[in-house]
């Protein structure tokens, strides 16, 4: 069977034009997708059944047993951490939040090690953005800052920016100027009209300098800023001011290098400054397929996009204090539930190591590094492959992930609902 317009759940682009051929419970061909999409659909090996770690190694257990034991672990905990949520759909995320409020847990999603700093910046200065179609149809200047879409979002340029045919930019490649800012040469910088190579940790200074130049204070700026010649900065400021529609996309190069959210804030304030001259927008390149959805769901339910602490019954938020890495690093939590993510691989060692010291339960379709640190791993469906549900694209557009095959696994939402019921029973989430 061939299914059209399938949504790829891998990255924040959520490309929805894939064509997938299935043969029973097997996917045999993926068309239109990038190589990340192909791997997502084609090389989907799962843990066959729930497993539990014992003195002697690992043993298979039933779903019922795994679920009751998980509920027990969570019930006993004085400071449980519920982490992950970005590679699954909205319904699962929402039950996760209900569990957190029920048991007084800290709930955090993967933006904490991705675009959490962008959220902090947005909370300081806001976010002048737009949907990706606005960029596709209008933008004549595109800036990629501290990101490498060729590797991380392979179809971003062909679907939404550099190579995409837009209504007002019919000859995209000719009509769009592409500026790439990075500390190193990559395949993305290789297609730039203007490559700005900056020294490590120099983003903030360069952004400040650009803001000052746009404000007419070029005379203050020294001849070189973080390895970038003033002439180039002045030239870029001019390109931006003369754009009809400029769009900045930024990545982990801003959020993960020193200064963190202050870098992003500075980029947003540059966009704000440029908006006084022409149309300018800025957007983070979100990583996981539904990480933005986890922010959305958390926000309408708790008021905060990530790092929510329910220890006191009310929702409290303070990244740096209530974020997963910090909670683990300080050894605060005494139980962890990891859903649809792999902190064992993605967190610094000292944080990951704490997971092995406490009862940790993983709910994830795949065996991953965290499995090794856990006490129980419960396999489930993968959203967008054998489970349908809502995901939010990096620009906030909600898209329904499809179920293309049935592999007989329970949906993670169903597993969590059962855990919730064992913990409470009273109010269905």
């Amino acid at each position, binding site marked *: 069977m061939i299914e059209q317009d399938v949504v790829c759940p891998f990255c924040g682009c959520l490309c*929805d*034009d894939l064509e997938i051929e299935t043969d029973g419970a097997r996917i045999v061909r993926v068309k239109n997708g990038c190589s990340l999409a192909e791997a997502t659909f084609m090389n989907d090996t799962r843990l066959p059944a729930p497993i539990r770690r014992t003195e002697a190694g690992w043993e298979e257990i039933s779903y019922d047993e795994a679920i009751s034991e998980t509920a027990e672990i969570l019930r006993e905990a004085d400071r449980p951490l519920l982490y992950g949520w970005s590679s699954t759909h909205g319904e699962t995320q929402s039950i996760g939040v209900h569990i957190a409020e029920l048991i007084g847990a800290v709930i955090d999603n993967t933006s904490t090690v991705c675009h959490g700093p962008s959220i902090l910046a947005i909370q300081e200065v*806001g976010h002048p*953005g737009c949907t990706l179609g606005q960029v596709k149809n209008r933008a004549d200047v595109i800036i990629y800052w501290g990101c490498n879409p060729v590797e991380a979002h392979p179809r971003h340029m062909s679907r939404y920016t550099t190579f995409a045919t837009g209504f007002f930019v019919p000859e995209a490649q000719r009509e769009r100027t592409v500026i790439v800012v990075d500390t190193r040469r990559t395949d993305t910088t290789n297609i730039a009209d203007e490559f700005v190579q900056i020294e490590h940790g120099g983003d903030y200074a360069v952004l400040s300098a650009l803001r000052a130049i746009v404000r007419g204070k070029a005379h203050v700026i020294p001849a070189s800023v973080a390895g970038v010649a003033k002439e180039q900065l002045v030239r870029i400021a001019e390109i931006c001011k003369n754009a009809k529609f400029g769009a900045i996309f930024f990545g982990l190069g801003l959020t993960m290098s020193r200064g963190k959210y202050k870098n992003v804030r500075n980029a947003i304030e540059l966009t704000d400054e440029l908006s006084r001259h022409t149309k300018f927008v800025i957007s983070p390149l979100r990583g996981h397929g539904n990480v933005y959805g986890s922010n959305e769901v958390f926000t309408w339910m708790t008021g905060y996009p990530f790092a929510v602490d329910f220890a006191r019954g009310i929702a409290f938020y303070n990244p740096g204090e209530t974020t997963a890495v910090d909670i683990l690093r300080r050894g605060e939590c005494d139980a962890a539930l990891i859903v649809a993510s792999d902190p064992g691989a993605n967190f610094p060692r000292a944080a990951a190591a704490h997971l092995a010291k406490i009862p940790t339960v993983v709910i994830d379709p795949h065996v991953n590094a965290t499995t090794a640190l856990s006490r129980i791993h419960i396999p489930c469906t993968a959203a967008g492959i054998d489970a349908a549900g809502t995901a939010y694209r990096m620009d906030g557009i909600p898209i329904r992930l499809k179920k293309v095959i049935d592999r007989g696994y329970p949906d993670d939402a169903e597993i969590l609902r059962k855990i919730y019921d064992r913990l409470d029973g009273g109010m269905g989430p």
Partner: protein
Amino acid sequence: MTELWVKNACVIDPIRGINGEIMDIAIRDGRIVESVSDRADVIDAHRCLTLPGGIDSHTHVSGTKVNFGRYMSPEDMRAGRTKRRGKMHVTSGYYVPTTFGNSYRYSAMGYTTLLEGAMAPLEARHTHEEFTATPHQDMLANTLFDGNWAVMDAVREHDVRKAAAVVAWTLNAARGYAIKLTNPGGTEAWGWGDDLTSIHEQVPHFAVTPAEIITTLIQANELLRLPHSVHLHCNNLGKPGNYQTTLDTFELVPDLNPARQSLYATHVQFHAYGGGTWRNICSKAEEITRSINSKPQIVMDMGQIMFCRTMTMTADGPMEFNLHCLHHNKWSNHDVELETGSGIIPVTYSKKSAVNCIMWAIGLELALLTKSPWQCLLETDNPNGAPFVKYPEIIGLLMSKRYRDEECATLHAETEKRTSLWALERELDWHEIAVMTRAGQAKALGIASQGKGHLGIGAEADIAIYPIRTDMVDPAREYRKVVEGFQKTRYTIKRGRVVSRDGEIIVDGANATFWVNAKVPEDIRMENDKEFIRRFEQFYTVRMSNYPVQDLYLPRGRCIETEAML
């Protein structure tokens, strides 16, 4: 079968012409009936004020923009935090509360139906997800068409039928309720960082004017026989001197529907400014209401502001940017491809600001100068003018000249000179308040026939019982009792179930979402229009097949079907 009998209720039900009668109300399975058996649960209202459930015909509580307001405001989330308690989930936030916060607080105030003021069709799924998490109110979604490319193409081609067909297809896809125009044409211009300054200025690249968009969609709306009229946020919002644009717009409106208005003009306070700069801004409420009083085809709502810190959020992107340039606080903007825009900034309305004081006075003037309460409905464009929890204070102000005088005495000295509020003696009565907070909304939205906004036999049993004895309270003097009384119902009954008692939510919600399916003839359906499909697939960034909202997003969807006259 569940039965409920409310006895000794002092009922004001304007749609049925009931004004303060002591009566009993019988309810069976969520609807009002003639009588119930003696096994029915009984509520004794003790002659307290009993009204149909409150209806907010323009509020921002769900969807992309609202949630972004929350997302960017951790400082607001610290206000109004409550723990999980009984049937109540955790809530956070004061001016941009979480969905549960919105739902519980509206319910405590006796509100049972809400119209979300602005939903971009492309992001409709999000709005519906939040509707599900706002469980105690029936929800309806205004659907944005102000910068819709296909609509503007049809307008340019003077093809009303085509415009109607685009609206019908989009409402169906978005599971929307009504046509919303926010700064028509201006949001498309904002795609280039521009705005339109008059209703006769052309939208860049589209060769249509706001006036043409408005008039075409008013006609299309009636051709589709939509229950609500076109719902318009006029051009030039918030600019000194904009009243002329508003009056010009009102002049465009024909009287096409005997059952209701042909245009719903929202938050008119923001559109009733004289002067030319922020220094000489003044009230033009008299001019606006003179126009309204002679035009039964127009209904407006107040857009009252109250003095507090709050968040402005609207599809009107350029307006928000202008406001941002004045306030220098945080600013978010979110343009939606081929459809509309949006912007968000926090503001503080202060009595120290002459402009804010004049705005406050204008909203009240509008309500007091409009002769028929059916034509000026009470709201704050929540949370733009103030969070909805301020409604009881507005009721108090409208019912008491003394309260107004006391407030006026604390305002910026310029206010008296530039508004006429000081001279207005009118004090609204209970019946007029009932019209302005539910009956008028039900009629304007076209949901009275769905059993909303009245307590007639067969109506949905959405009822608010306030701890107010109208025979014992003199609102002109005891306005504080009025304000307090409207803050917390004794009982809020939603579809026959008591959902809130003395401000405490006691059951899980089970709201419905109303949407409209306007059936158009096969030959002009957009899903058969090759050019429409081609442009969709080429210029949107989602596939047309992934665009429509699936039914499962409306677990209790209530479809209103209409047969278009095309």
